[in-house]
C-alpha cells in the first residue's frame, strides 16, 4: 500500500488535480457576475434548509454503512456505526487529499477493522463505487425526461453508462462463475509458486468480496440500499433549493445530484472544488435558473457536502488511530502461533481468512405463528412453559431448515410467504400474527393442505419440518407414549423378547 500511496500521492497528480479544478472554476466564472453571486449568498435563508440538507446527507452515510455491512455479511461482522465511520473516513480523506486517496484509506481501515485482506477490502470499495455509479445512472434516467440532456453532457452520460454497466456485468460474471476465474488463475503455475499464490490470493480476495452477488436477495437488497443512499443525497440538493427561493422540485434536485456526481469523477483537487461547482451550477442553470443564483446554490450545497463529513471523518480517524495504537502494543506482546499438526499433509496454503461465524437466525414472529398453526399443540398435554419451549425449538429448527434450502428455492419461498402475508392481510384486514389461533390454523390448513398445488408446495417445507420437529421433540414423544422425556444423546436400547418368550 505504501507503494501505491507514494505513486498516487505524487506531486504530479496533485498539480494536475489543482490545474483541473482551476480550469473548471474559470469555466464557471465566465458566466458569472460576482456581485450577483454575493447578493444571492447574502440573501440565502440558511434555516431550516441547510440543517435539513446536512441531515439528509448524514442519513445517506448511515445507510451506506448498512449497505457495507450487508455486502460483508458472511465475511466479517461490523456494527452499523463502525461501517458508517469507515465509509465516512473515505469521504473525509477524499475531501482533504487529492487523487481519490480516500478510496485507499477506506479500504485500509476496512481491512484493519475486519481482518479482511486488503485486496478484498479494495474490491469491496470498488464495487460500492460501481453500485453508486449504477444507482446514479438509474436516477438520472428518471430525471432526463424532465430536464433533457444534450451535447457533451449526453455524450458523457452515455460513456459513463457503458463504463459502469460493463464493469458491473464483468463483476456479475466473475461472481456467478468464480470457479472459472479460479481455474484460469490457477493455470498460472508457470509463474512459480510465490507469484502464483500471490495472484491466487488476490483473485480469491476479490472473489470473496463479490460473493454476495450470488445471493439474489442480498444482491437486490444492496442495490435497493444504493438507490436509498442516492435519494438521501438528492435530499441534500433538494433541501437547499428553497434557501434561494427556488421551487422545491425533486426532479431538479435529482438532476443536480446525478450530474454533479458524474462530473466529479474527473480527477481534481481535494474536495472536488471546481468540478463540483461547475456541474452543479450547469444542471440548475439548465432548468432556467440565473447563473449567479445557480452558482450560489452550488457553493452552499458544496459546503453542506464538505464540512460535516470531513469533520466526522477526522473524528473517526482520530478514534481508530488511538485504537490501532493499542492493538499494535498488544500485538507486540503476542506469541507466534505453534506449527499446526496438519502441516504434515502436503498442503500449500494460499490464503486464510476468518469469516463471521454463521448466525442462527431467531425465528420471526410470522414464522413462529405459522409454525404454531402447523403443529397440533392442543392434541398433546403440555403446560404453558413446556408448550412455549417446544414452540421455540420447533420454530428455530424450521427456520434453520429453510435457510439450508438452495438459494433459488429460498428466494421462491420468501416471495411465497410475502404473498401469503399480503393476501391474508388483504382478506382479513389484519396481519396473520394478530388473528386468533383458530383462524390461523384454518388459514394454514387451507394453504398447506388445500386444492391449490402451488400453495401446498409453498407450505410443504414448513408443514413437514414443523411436524417432524414437533413429534420428535423429546417432550412431545414422552407425552405421546406416557413416559418421562429421554435426555438428548442417551439412546434407549430395546432388547426385543424372543418369539418363545412372547408367546409365553
Amino acid at each position: 500500500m505504501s507503494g501505491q500511496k507514494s505513486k498516487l500521492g505524487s506531486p504530479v497528480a496533485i498539480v494536475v488535480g489543482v490545474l483541473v479544478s482551476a480550469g473548471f472554476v474559470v469555466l464557471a466564472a465566465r458566466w458569472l457576475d460576482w456581485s450577483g453571486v454575493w447578493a444571492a449568498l447574502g440573501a440565502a435563508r440558511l434555516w431550516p434548509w441547510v440543517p435539513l440538507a446536512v441531515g439528509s446527507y448524514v442519513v445517506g452515510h448511515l445507510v451506506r454503512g448498512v449497505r457495507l455491512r450487508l455486502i460483508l455479511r458472511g465475511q466479517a461482522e461490523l456494527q452499523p456505526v463502525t461501517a458508517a465511520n469507515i465509509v465516512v473516513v473515505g469521504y473525509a480523506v477524499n475531501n482533504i487529499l487529492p487523487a481519490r486517496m480516500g478510496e485507499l484509506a477506506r479500504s485500509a481501515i476496512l481491512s484493519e477493522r475486519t481482518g479482511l485482506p486488503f485486496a478484498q477490502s479494495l474490491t469491496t470499495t470498488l464495487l460500492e463505487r460501481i453500485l453508486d455509479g449504477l444507482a446514479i445512472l438509474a436516477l438520472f434516467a428518471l430525471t432526463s425526461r424532465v430536464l433533457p440532456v444534450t451535447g457533451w453532457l449526453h455524450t458523457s452520460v452515455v460513456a459513463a453508462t457503458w463504463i459502469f454497466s460493463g464493469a458491473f456485468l464483468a463483476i456479475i460474471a466473475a461472481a456467478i462463475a468464480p470457479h472459472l476465474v479460479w481455474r484460469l488463475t490457477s493455470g498460472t503455475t508457470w509463474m512459480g509458486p510465490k507469484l502464483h499464490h500471490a495472484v491466487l490470493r488476490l483473485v480469491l480476495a476479490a472473489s470473496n468480496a463479490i460473493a454476495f452477488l450470488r445471493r439474489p436477495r442480498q444482491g437486490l437488497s444492496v442495490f435497493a440500499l444504493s438507490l436509498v443512499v442516492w435519494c438521501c443525497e438528492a435530499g441534500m440538493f433538494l433541501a437547499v433549493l428553497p434557501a434561494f427561493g427556488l421551487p422545491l422540485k425533486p426532479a431538479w434536485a435529482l438532476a443536480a445530484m446525478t450530474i454533479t456526481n458524474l462530473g466529479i469523477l474527473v480527477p481534481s483537487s481535494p474536495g472536488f472544488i471546481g468540478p463540483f461547482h461547475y456541474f452543479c451550477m450547469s444542471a440548475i442553470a439548465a432548468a432556467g435558473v440565473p447563473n449567479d443564483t445557480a452558482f450560489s446554490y452550488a457553493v452552499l450545497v458544496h459546503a453542506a457536502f464538505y464540512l460535516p463529513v470531513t469533520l466526522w471523518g477526522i473524528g473517526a480517524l482520530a478514534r481508530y488511530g488511538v485504537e490501532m495504537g493499542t492493538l499494535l502494543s498488544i500485538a507486540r506482546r503476542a506469541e507466534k502461533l505453534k506449527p499446526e499438526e496438519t502441516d504434515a499433509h502436503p498442503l500449500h496454503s494460499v490464503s486464510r481468512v476468518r469469516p463471521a461465524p454463521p448466525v442462527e437466525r431467531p425465528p420471526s414472529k410470522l414464522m413462529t405463528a405459522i409454525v404454531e398453526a402447523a403443529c397440533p399443540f392442543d392434541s398433546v398435554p403440555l403446560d404453558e412453559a413446556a408448550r412455549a419451549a417446544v414452540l421455540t425449538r420447533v420454530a428455530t429448527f424450521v427456520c434453520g431448515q429453510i435457510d439450508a434450502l438452495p438459494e433459488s428455492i429460498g428466494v421462491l419461498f420468501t416471495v411465497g410467504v410475502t404473498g401469503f402475508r399480503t393476501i391474508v392481510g388483504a382478506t382479513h384486514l389484519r396481519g396473520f400474527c394478530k388473528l386468533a389461533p383458530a383462524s390461523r390454523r384454518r388459514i394454514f390448513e387451507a394453504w398447506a393442505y388445500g386444492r391449490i398445488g402451488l400453495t401446498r408446495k409453498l407450505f410443504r417445507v414448513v408443514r413437514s419440518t414443523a411436524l417432524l420437529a414437533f413429534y420428535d421433540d423429546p417432550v412431545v414423544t414422552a407425552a405421546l407414549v406416557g413416559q418421562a422425556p429421554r435426555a438428548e444423546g442417551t439412546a434407549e436400547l430395546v432388547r426385543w423378547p424372543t418369539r418363545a418368550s412372547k408367546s409365553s
Partner: protein
Amino acid sequence: MANARVEVLVIGSGAGGATTALELARRGRDVLVVEEGRRWPVEDYGQSSTAAMQRLYRRRGMTPILGKVPIGYVEGCAVGGSTEINSGFWHRTPPETLLRWRTQYDLQAASVEEMAPHFQWAEGEVGVSRSSGPLPESSALMLKGAEAMGWAAQEVPRAARNCRSSNLCAHGCPTGAKPGMSRSLLPRAEEAGAPLLTNTRVKVLLRRGGRVTGVLAERRHDDDTVELVRIDADHVFVCAGPTETPALLRRSGVRRYIGESLRIHPMLKVAARFPREVDAHVSSLPLIQVKQFAPELSLGGGFFTFGHLAMLLSENTAQVSPHMADARRMASYYVAVRGNGVGSVRSSILDEGTVIRYRLSDEDVWNLSRGLARLAMLLLAAGAEEVYPAVHGLPPIRTDVDAARWLDDRLSGSTLSLTTVHAFSSAPMGERRDRCATDSFGKVNGFANLYLNDASTLPDSPGVNPQGSVMAFARRNALHFLENAQ
C-alpha cells in the same frame, strides 16, 4: 514442503472413497483422503432426528430433486458419507443388472464371477450378516403379509453384525454396531498410512491439458478460519458421491457425459395402522424386502420415528393429530421403483450448491401405482386396518378392492410425495464412448490421471440398495489402477 505432493488424492470418504483409500494404502501407495464433513465421535451419534439432520446430512437434509414431481433427497455429509446414516442393507448387484450394463454400456470385467471376490472382500470388511434375533414386529407383519400373498420375500443381510435395535440408523448408529466407513474402513486406511483431512471441501480440480495437477480446497479450521489450500497430486480419485462428484467435475470444466444421466430409486411411503401395538419407534428397521417384482419394484419397511410418521401422514391428510394418538400401532413401509426417468446434476451458480433435476417417467408412475396396490394388499393381508399413502387427496385404503384398483389405474404424478436415498449413474462407466464418462474402470475419458470411484459411475439403477455395488466396484477399480497406473 514447498514441492510436496501426494501420489494419490482421494476426494470423499464414503463407501467408494474409503474402499479406494484402504486398498491403495494397503499396497503401499502414498494416499491422502479429503472429506468435506466433520469427524463425529460415536458419543455424538444417535441424537434426535433434528440434531442428526443438522450434523450428518448435506444441507441439513434439505436437498430437493427438482422436476415436475419434486422428490426429497438426502445424503450424508460427514466422515464416512452416507454410510453413516443408511440402514446398512446389503445386496450384491443382481446378475440381470450386470448383464444389462454389459449390453447397454459395454462394461468390461463385471460378470457375476468377476465381481464375486470383490463382494466377498467388502462383506468381510463391514461384517455383513443376517439378524440373529427374532424379527421386530413390523418386519414379522410384513413377512406374514408376503406369505399370505404368496410372494417371495427375504430378510435382507445388513452391514450391522451386532445391531441392538436402537432404531437410530438414520441418526448415526450410537452403538457402532452398524459400521459406517468412519468405524470400519477409514480407521484401517489410516492405520495403513492414508491420512484423512476433514472439514476440507474441494472447490475445483486444477488441470493442465489432459492431466489433473491437483485441487484447490477450502479448509475450515477449529478456530473458525477458512484457508484456501492447494493440494498437488499425481493421481486424483473423485469419490464425492452421485451428486457432488459430477458437480465438482462440471465446475472444473470436465463435462462430457458428466451429470447428464442421473438415475434414482423413487420411493413412495405408506403408513399402516394395525390392531395392536407395533412400537416401531423403538424397534430396529423392518428387515424384510419383497423381491417378487424385482428389480423394477421392491417393497420394504421404512425408518420410523413419530416425527417421520407425522410427516408421512401430512402428505395424505390435514388431520394428523387424531392418527398420532395411534402412533404406537403404526409402522411405515415403502414401494421403491428402479427409476426409468433421467435426471441431471449441475453446479449452482447462486450458492456453490448442487442443482439436481429428475424427470419422473410415465413408467415410473405406473410402477409406483402398481407398487402401492401390492404393498397395500400385503399390509391388509398382514392385518392392517388402514393404509395411508403419501399421496395428496387419496383416502386411506381399507379393503383389498380399494388397493387392487391401483393395479390398473394410474396415480396422478402431481399428487405424489416422493423421496429417495439412492442416486447413481451421473457419470456412467463403460466402453461406450457415446454415453459413458469413464472407461470400464472409472478412468475419466480424455484424462491420464483422473478417476471416479463411487455411485456416480454405476451405469444404471441397480434396483437394490447400492452400498454393496459401490464398494465392490470401487475395490475392483482400485486394484485395476494398481495393476495399470504408471
